[in-house]
Structure formats: structure tokens, C-alpha cells
């Protein structure tokens, strides 16, 4: 009952016989729409970006799941795929990009570097230790260095599942 609650008169509809059914059906319809159309941002940081393009390319074809519209402008994206190593110099930029995205927005951390720094955890002075250390909440972590395209597709499906089960009113 997330989106529907915001509509004035939702309480009224609920009181009508069958109104609850109508509300839940529309809610799941809206969630279906949200889950089936996750537009990622064209935002490659490092190695994983190549695998992200490969996921969009013929053999794997992320567009089958409705997520093939890579938008370059953060205003039109739903999911930020953090694909690659986050460096200190890039921190503010990523925070700003995340802030520029309109709600509801989701974050996929693709690859070990985006999760924790990965193989660049030790002995480096310029690598941020993961997306979460920037204060950005990550929805799906996809490990691998780099993850295979199948993993990204699986991660996407997990995100879709998560959206369908969503209860968090903030979203």
C-alpha cells in the first residue's frame, strides 16, 4: 500500500465493497510497471563497465527484461549500476549523480570494487572502500571481478523481485 496511500480518498475506496481488492490490484500493477522498466544510467567507472555493455550486447541482451534503455542523463534513470572501482576523486561525483536521480531510485553495486574495494582494498591510498561507505544505500550487490553478464542479469531479476515485494513507504 505504498503509492496508493498517497492518493486522496484511498481510505474511502477501501470502505467500498471490493475496494481493497481494487487497491491491491492497482498497487501490484504499478509495482509491475516499476519493476519491468528499470532504466540504468550510462555510468561505467572501470572494468565492470565493459561487462555492463556486454550485458546490453546481443548475446546477453538486458533489453529483454526492459532494462536496455541506457540513459545518459541521471534525471531519466531508475537504477544506478556502480560498475567499477570508486576512487577518492570520484566520491563527490557519485554522490551528486545519486542525488540527481529522481525517486524511486535503486543502486546495484556491480563487482567487488563497488562492494568493498575488492582487490584494491589493501595498499592503496586512493580507493574508496565500496559504495556504502559513500552513504549510498545499495539494493543489490553483485560480487565478481568482474561479474559475468549472467550475474548482472540475475542481480537485475533480484532487484525486480525486491521491488515487487517492497513495503518500505519511503520508496
Amino acid at each position: 500500500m505504498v503509492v496508493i496511500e498517497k492518493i486522496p480518498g484511498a481510505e474511502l475506496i477501501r470502505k467500498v465493497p471490493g475496494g481493497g481488492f481494487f487497491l491491491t490490484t492497482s498497487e501490484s500493477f504499478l509495482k509491475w510497471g516499476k519493476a519491468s522498466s528499470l532504466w540504468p544510467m550510462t555510468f561505467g567507472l572501470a572494468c565492470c563497465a565493459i561487462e555492463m555493455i556486454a550485458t546490453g550486447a546481443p548475446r546477453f541482451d538486458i533489453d529483454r527484461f526492459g532494462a536496455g534503455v541506457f540513459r545518459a542523463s541521471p534525471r531519466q534513470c531508475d537504477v544506478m549500476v556502480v560498475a567499477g572501482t570508486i576512487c577518492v576523486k570520484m566520491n563527490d561525483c557519485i554522490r551528486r549523480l545519486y542525488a540527481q536521480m529522481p525517486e524511486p531510485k535503486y543502486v546495484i553495486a556491480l563487482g567487488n570494487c563497488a562492494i568493498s574495494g575488492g582487490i584494491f582494498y589493501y595498499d592503496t591510498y586512493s580507493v574508496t572502500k565500496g559504495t556504502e561507505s559513500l552513504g549510498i544505500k545499495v539494493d543489490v550487490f553483485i560480487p565478481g571481478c568482474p561479474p559475468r553478464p549472467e550475474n548482472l542479469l540475475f542481480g537485475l531479476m533480484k532487484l525486480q523481485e525486491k521491488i515487487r515485494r517492497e513495503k518500505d513507504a519511503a520508496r
Partner: protein
Amino acid sequence: MDATQTKDIYTEEFLINMGPQHPSTHGVLSLELTLDGETIVECTPHIGYLHRSMEKIAENRTYTQFIPFTDRLDYVASMNNNLGYVMVVEKLLKLEISERAKYIRVIIAELNRIASHLIAIGTFAQDLGAFATPLFYCFREREKIVEIFDQLCGNRLTYNYMRIGGVLTDFSRDIEEKIKKFIKYMRPKVDDYDWLLTYNAIFLARSKHIGVLSKEMAVNYSITGPNLRASGVKWDLRKDEPYLAYDKFEFDVPVGKNGDAWDRYKVRIEEIRQSLRIIEQAIEALPQGDVAVKVGRIHKPSPSETYFRTENPRGELGFYIVSDDSVYPYRLKIRSPSFSNLAVLPELVRGLKVADIVCVLGSFDILMGEIDR
């Protein structure tokens, strides 16, 4: 800001930030452009958004432990990076590897060169506005190479296949067949690109005489690889300072005439053809024997310093390695080709249009992973 003030109209240059997140900066490059209308007055690249301090890491890893990190330098041509690094360590250790390993390295390196050039061509076309189709065609072909590598070493992008003293695993019979099949498959595809892109009128109009890099300038800026050859300098380490078994194969070094964006593209297309030739010869003449010299995992070279460079798809990748009497390198300097190639960009784009900067940048085929290291 200098503004030209006439009676009541005055114009002003304006500043635009391209990147770090921009579809055609090939990763996280940031370009600060001063524009006069659509014309570029000044271009200042800001790099370092992917500075992962590889050189610091190298000082704290053993010689073998650093091989996986080289994968992530130029992540489109990981095998070539592996090769460059293990060869410098072998030079430091004065290690001689077997003939079969040499041939396998040549085949793998050339396959990866093709994969890398495919991405270069695809992204260049994408930058020129041929949205996604050429890029996806290139990825389709690249997928075949990746499949071979996947079977060989179990990863699709970061292979970690070369070892100090040889390679990780021998070819199975199956792989030789696959490579042969790939050569047959790839040849007509390269001709397809000629149909789709090379002689397309719009493509020619966009890339001919754009970003002309003269011979002298290219050498002075230490441009290497296909970009240097496109400017008309016949310089290829595989021919001029042959390493591995390159002196045993017949191949041409394609050279451009004008040094413009189109020439840089065309040289890459031709190099794919030449690489196919090399692979074909190498796979025919593949000698029998071991693929790796038995050496331990820990190496302890005597204190010395060595520089070695190999011909990477993007230019000459050099490693300057300094050893002390420990199992860690004292210092490892990575001389990455894209770093020098990018430095020339501000000179080339002055006076061009915004659309051209994307074209010039795309034609240089830079990769932030190895620029920032």
C-alpha cells in the same frame, strides 16, 4: 573571460564540463571545455578519476601477485598487459621461455588485440552517433574471442593467464579448432564493417580531416601504437624490435596518410586483418613442448632495473621495474600508452566543434584504466 563588446551586443565564452559521467568520455575522463558558440576555444582534460594507485600496490606485492592487477590496467586488452608485465619480469630474471609458450602468447595477444580494436571501432562509431548498432556488432564478434578466453582461463575480462615463465594452461585441441573457426568467421565480418562504416558518406564527412596529427607532433608527444601509425610513421614494435616469435611471421604494418580520425580508425581495421594473418600462421606452426618453465611462485631477482615495452593495442606499454634484494619490486612504473596519447588532445581540438571533440577522442581509443592506473 574575455568578452568582445560591440555597441549593444556582446558575446561571452562559456564553460562546459564534459564528464566524469558522460556517455562518450570512455569512462571517467573529465574535459573542461571553453566554448565560443559551438567552437572549442580551450580544452583541459582532468584525469585521475580512476587512479587506483597500482604503482603503490606493486611495491607491496610479490612479482607473481601483481599479475592480476595488470589485467585491470587496460581492461579491454588484459592479455597484452599480462604479457607486458611477465616479459619485463622475465627480462629481470633473465628467464628464457619455451617455444610453444611463445607461440601461444602470440596467438592470445593477437586475439586480444582484435577484441580490443573491435571495442575501439564500436565505441568510435557510437561516438559519431551511429547509435549502438556498430557497437553491438563489434561486441557480438568480441564475444567469440571472449568465449575462447573463457574456456582457456575461466574469466571473461580479467584473464590472469600469462605466468612468469610461460602461460597458465596449454591449449586443448578444441581451442585450436575454435580459433581456426573464429578466423574464418571474422574475415567477412571485417569486410562488413567496411560496408557499414568505413566508406559511409556521413562517416567520412565526420571523420576525414578531423583532428589531424602530424608526424612530427605525434613523435614529439610520444604517441604510440595505431595512432602513431595513422600519422604515417611506420613504427611497430612487433616489426622493429621483435619480441616473442613475432619475427617468424609475415605481416604488414598498416600506415595512414593524413593522421586524421578516419586514418586512425582505418589503421585499426587493417590491424585486425593483420592480426588474423598472424594468428593463422602461428596456429599452423604451433610447436610442441611445455608451456611453462618450472619456476617457483616467489622470485628474488638481484638488485637491478629494467625497462621493457610491448606493442599493446593502444600503443606501447612499458614497465620500468626496479628490484632490491626482497621478493617485492622496489618500484614499478607503468608507462601506459593512453596517458601519452591523451596528452595531445587539447592541441588537436582547438578550433573544432563540440561534435568533433567526441570524434577525436573516440578515434584515439583511450582507456581510463591505464591512464589513471
